[in-house]
């Protein structure tokens, strides 16, 4: 009963970890996953993905999900 957590780019660097595995107990949404794994408030503008799809922090999550947190993507200017 676990959820895989992934962090990327500046968020990965700030937290000092790129991956985590947390127990599902007490977890209902993506924001809960952040709280349990990161232990600090979710930075503004952080993007969230659940199972490789963009999601809102309040999206429900469940056992086996992969939840990722990352800064806005920087593909480039026009």
């Amino acid at each position, binding site marked *: 009963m676990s959820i895989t957590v992934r962090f990327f780019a*500046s968020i990965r660097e700030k937290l000092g970890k790129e991956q985590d595995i947390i127990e599902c107990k007490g977890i209902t949404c993506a924001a809960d996953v952040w709280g349990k794994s990161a232990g600090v408030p979710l930075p503004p503008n952080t993007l969230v993905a659940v199972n*490789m799809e963009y999601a809102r922090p309040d999206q429900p999550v469940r056992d086996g999900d992969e939840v990722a947190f*990352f800064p806005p*993507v*920087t593909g*480039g*200017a*026009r």
Partner: protein
Amino acid sequence: MKIRLVEQAFDPWQEIARHQSGQPALAGKFGATVVFVGTLRDFNQGDAVQAMTLEHYAPMTQKHLERVAEEALARWPIEDVLLVHRYGELQPNDPIVCVAVWAAHRDSAFDACRYLIDELKTRAPFWKQELTEKGRRWVEKEKD
């Protein structure tokens, strides 16, 4: 349709030639090929750029590139799409991304190519970290 995420430097023109020659069903069907190649500059935001690291979220990046390509194929009468994107350590003058579209006519090829590059830049999870003489810095999202 072909999507390739590559860690090593690539030659977009070889990629395009190889893809086209590997698709015999395309022959005779297209009258237009539109190509966009994005290349790493040696300057950004007033600083000299010595190198860039392109981080990505491999399976999610692949998934969203495929989705953008599928959208273009559904929206315009085009025959084929090739997307090649680098990740990892890049040097100035390295191609970063190549988008090629084959279509019967140029209007749809141009429109689809423009759509593909604009959409992938906002939807595919890539993050740029530049190395300048001031050190490493994450590139912030540009304001529209």
